[in-house]
């Protein structure tokens, strides 16, 4: 009985497993009809009308933001607007999304305006300073909200452009696979899959860029006819590695794969068409897809149950960026045009996020980029929480560096939507400090009676609640498939502390900080609690618990005259505690049993037994190490027996040697044995490099239901507390007395 199964069962019981069917009246209802008619109204084409309407709307918007209301008036106004939003959100269509977004911007701006104009203390005091801190954090959140809406308002959702029939028009491609210290076993499938990509043989060259100057890499490259490239130093890490290879190669296009991102055979045919269509196109990016769970998913046992962190970016943000011609380069699973890359001096080396910075430089020269949201490669996620945190620190530091030395708001060549998209990408990584402020703000009252918001709790509620409600309605509509409201808080909170320091340092001195390579392919051998990573949160958690204790004192004895204020701060603290507790669960690293992650497949397969007999069966999952087979009938075969397992791709067959490691009932597991290079090619062709390898990987998930998310996070939080306390119990020696167990 673990959390995951409980969650699944609970969903099933509540009938939440399946997606709710959309009532057709929300598709073709009166509201949609009138919306369509409004959009197609001929009046809009009369000159000036559109402008005048926009101006009138803006004036009305300004009025609604600034007009002072009494508490009751504000309450009635908010109730009406929230009711409208709740009613229309069930209708589909971009127009409705736009209305919901406008309502959210209205409510949030009105709240912020009120906070600024009415709820701040004027005379200088500690309250004012703390209050300003909170206000600044809220202002930051408002900017992120509004720019975020702008960024993702109309995701482009490009489709691949088919390649021309005439092969002579197909450009030459160099495939770069940079590696620094990853083991060869991680790199082999990537190189073999790159060689197996569907492209004219004479027009593709694969390069293994080894920054580790390793002999086994050189030998492997020679054995598969891949050009091995190395250099004498390691200056500028991956960016330098790629740049060093540029003069030694000559393909028109350059495809880059991190050494653990295994491409499907369709990767080039899906992406290159875009370059032929648009001569100004400099780069095409495809999603980074992970076949193993990240530490959040693993430790919370939520793999494939919730959208993970990357999904918001690759599922929505990049598609949104693409509309504004601001899709970013993400370092891997991308294709670049050589001439344009050379024009910006190769991959950027000034910052540690060389990829985003390179894209920025390309955009400054007026070139286009594109994002193709079709998974064309897969790799391993970071293994442990500390590695994950390390990677995010690098991203945050790099983004802060770009913000300092090549700020997208200034400088030549960018159009303002591009500036905003880049600004949001960078500002996003400054969430560390604001989040810590939100986690500790109520404590300033509970501990010191600091009134950082100069308003009674009921007035605050009628302004703040509509702001929160509308933001959630609009966000869950736009991002619902890619991000679940309260889970995102958990992700951000876990990283907030670690991101806060490097971003601040990089703002002060952009030159500091080095590139740290993300460790992958390792394994967590036993369950342990990462004290080092979680210590800041433990302190904040302890403070919050203390705050609650004091809060009860204030509620019943010391501050009974401001019951509302105490209650408000208490509730806020309870919410913070819940998020913190869920964050703690992440730090409890669960044991990772398998070295290779299994990927679900349902492929026809065949086992060829040592006696020449065969079994037609189905492969259920595969990894680099082996296969799981579902048998039609029980099979008498001993463990250790050598067999051949064939996987089928259409009518193509790929036979791989394997040894039986488990055989019980109708389940058989086999480990690949004595694989030669041909067998390896067959394995990759039948699995990772299949055109449909990652299709249907993301099941149609439930869209975001914020209240359910809240309850689930609460569940994880409680569970985290429980496990955490048990873990402490185990480490405290006196609890180890066997007497207790008997």
């Amino acid at each position, binding site marked *: 009985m673990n959390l995951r199964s409980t969650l699944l069962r609970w969903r099933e019981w509540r009938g939440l497993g399946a997606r709710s069917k959309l009532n057709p009246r929300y598709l073709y209802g009166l509201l949609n009809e009138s919306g369509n008619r409004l959009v197609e109204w001929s009046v809009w084409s009369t000159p000036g009308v559109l402008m005048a309407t926009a101006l009138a709307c803006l004036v009305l918007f300004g009025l609604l933001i600034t007009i002072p209301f009494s508490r009751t008036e504000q309450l009635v106004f908010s109730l009406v607007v929230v009711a409208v939003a709740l009613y229309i959100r069930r209708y589909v269509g971009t127009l409705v999304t736009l209305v919901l977004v406008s309502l959210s911007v209205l409510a949030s701006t009105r709240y912020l305006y009120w906070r600024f104009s009415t709820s701040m203390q004027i005379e200088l005091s500690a309250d004012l300073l703390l209050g300003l801190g909170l206000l600044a954090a809220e202002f930051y959140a408002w900017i992120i909200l509004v720019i975020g809406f702008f960024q993702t308002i109309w995701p482009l959702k490009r489709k691949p452009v088919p390649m021309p029939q005439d092969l002579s028009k197909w450009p030459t491609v160099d495939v770069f696979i940079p590696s620094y210290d990853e083991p060869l076993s991680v790199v082999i499938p990537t190189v073999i899959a790159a060689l197996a990509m569907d492209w004219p043989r004479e027009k593709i060259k694969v390069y293994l860029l080894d920054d580790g100057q390793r002999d086994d890499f050189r030998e492997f490259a020679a054995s598969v006819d891949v050009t091995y490239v190395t250099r004498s130093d390691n200056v500028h890490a991956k960016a330098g590695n790629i740049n060093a290879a540029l003069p030694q190669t000559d393909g028109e296009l350059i495809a880059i794969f991190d050494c653990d991102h295994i491409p499907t055979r369709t990767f080039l045919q899906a992406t290159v068409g875009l370059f032929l269509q648009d001569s100004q196109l400099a780069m095409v990016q495809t999603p980074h897809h992970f076949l193993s769970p990240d530490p959040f998913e693993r430790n919370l046992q939520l793999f494939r149950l919730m959208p993970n962190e990357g999904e918001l970016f690759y599922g929505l943000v990049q598609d949104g960026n693409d509309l504004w011609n601001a899709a970013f380069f993400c370092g891997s699973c991308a294709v670049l045009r050589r001439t344009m890359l050379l024009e910006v001096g190769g991959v950027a080396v000034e910052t540690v996020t060389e990829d985003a910075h390179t894209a920025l430089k390309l955009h400054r020269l007026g070139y286009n980029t594109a994002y193709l949201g079709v998974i064309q490669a897969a790799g391993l996620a970071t293994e442990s929480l500390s590695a994950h945190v390390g990677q995010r620190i690098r991203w945050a530091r790099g983004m802060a560096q770009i913000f300092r030395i090549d700020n997208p708001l200034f400088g030549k060549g960018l159009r303002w939507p591009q500036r905003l998209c880049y600004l949001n990408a960078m500002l996003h990584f400054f969430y560390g400090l604001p989040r810590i402020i939100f986690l500790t703000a109520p404590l300033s009252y509970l501990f010191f009676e600091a009134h950082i918001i100069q308003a009674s709790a009921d007035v605050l509620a009628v302004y703040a609640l509509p702001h929160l409600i509308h933001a959630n309605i609009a966000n869950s509509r736009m991002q619902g498939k890619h991000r679940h409201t309260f889970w995102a808080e958990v992700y951000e909170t876990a990283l907030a502390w670690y991101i806060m320091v490097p971003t601040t340092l990089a703002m002060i001195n952009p030159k500091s900080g080095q590139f740290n390579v993300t460790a992958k392919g390792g394994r967590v051998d036993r369950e342990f609690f990462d004290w080092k990573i979680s210590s800041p949160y433990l302190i904040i958690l302890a403070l919050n618990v203390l705050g609650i204790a004091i809060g009860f004192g204030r509620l019943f004895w010391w501050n009974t005259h401001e019951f509302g204020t105490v209650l408000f701060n208490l509730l806020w603290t309870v919410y913070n505690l819940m998020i913190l507790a869920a964050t703690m669960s992440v730090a409890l690293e669960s044991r990772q049993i398998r070295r290779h992650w299994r990927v679900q497949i349902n492929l026809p397969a*065949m086992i*060829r037994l040592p006696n020449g*007999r*065969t079994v*037609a069966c189905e492969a259920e999952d595969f990894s680099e190490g082996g296969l799981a087979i579902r*048998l039609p009938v029980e099979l008498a075969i001993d463990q250790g027996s050598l067999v051949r397992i064939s996987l089928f791709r259409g009518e193509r067959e*790929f036979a791989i040697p394997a040894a039986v490691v488990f055989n019980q009932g109708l389940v058989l597991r086999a480990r690949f044995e004595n694989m030669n290079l041909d067998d390896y090619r067959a394995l990759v062709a039948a699995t990772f490099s299949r055109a449909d390898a990652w299709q249907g990987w993301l099941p149609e998930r439930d869209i975001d239901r914020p209240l359910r998310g809240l309850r689930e996070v609460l569940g994880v939080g409680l569970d985290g507390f429980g496990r955490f306390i048990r873990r402490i119990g185990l480490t405290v020696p006196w609890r180890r007395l066997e007497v207790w167990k008997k």
Partner: protein
Amino acid sequence: MSVVVVASMKGGVGKTSVTANLAVAMAAELGAGCVSTIDLDPQNALHLHFGLDTSERKSVCKQALRNRSWRDVMADSPFGVTCLPYGVASEPERKAFEDILAAEPDWLRRHLAQTGLGGDDVVLIDMPPGPSVYLNQGFACADLVLIVLLPDAGSYSTIAAMESWIDQIALQRPDLHSVYLLNQMDESVRLNRDMGEVLRQRLDKRLSPVGIHRDEAVSEALAFLQPVLFYDPGCQATYDFQRLAAFLLEPAAR
């Protein structure tokens, strides 16, 4: 009635096994009694696959010599397929039979018409390897010729002869379809794999997308006088025959 002739240029390619097992697979799709098999190979081995009595006196050869209809010769097997064995024939009897066939090119067509089989029924005819009077009879009335190949150099070398022969027959029978079938495929053997690839390239669309894997169960099944589909329902060969049957029974393929 659809007539499928199973042929090969070379012996020992598993043609009789293919005929028997394919018939059983088709019967599973179409229903018992809808599929008949006729053995026109003097080796007289087809009926063994159905576990039928070898001492059966009535047979194609004998009936032909007595100029009798086939109607009471057809033997029902326990596997949903009717089988008409070639029969044990002495050397003069075989000669005499072959003389009849040489004299009357429409002999097979006439007899098939007399069987009273319906429009949805399928008849599979097992032929001796290489050119023969039997095969000429088959070409004259078949809807489909299934040519069995092994993934080896021997089979590959026969393709040219087979193709020119089929081209010649197509002059008289433009509606005659032919499909090549790769039998006893073992992807884990390098030579098999390479020959399979060469055959696929050479024959392209004329090669059946479904091949039959090498499988010991097929030979073992014969030793137990059963079709492989009954002997080992879970083996790859069974699965292959089922898919081959489905492929050939598709209206487009027929």
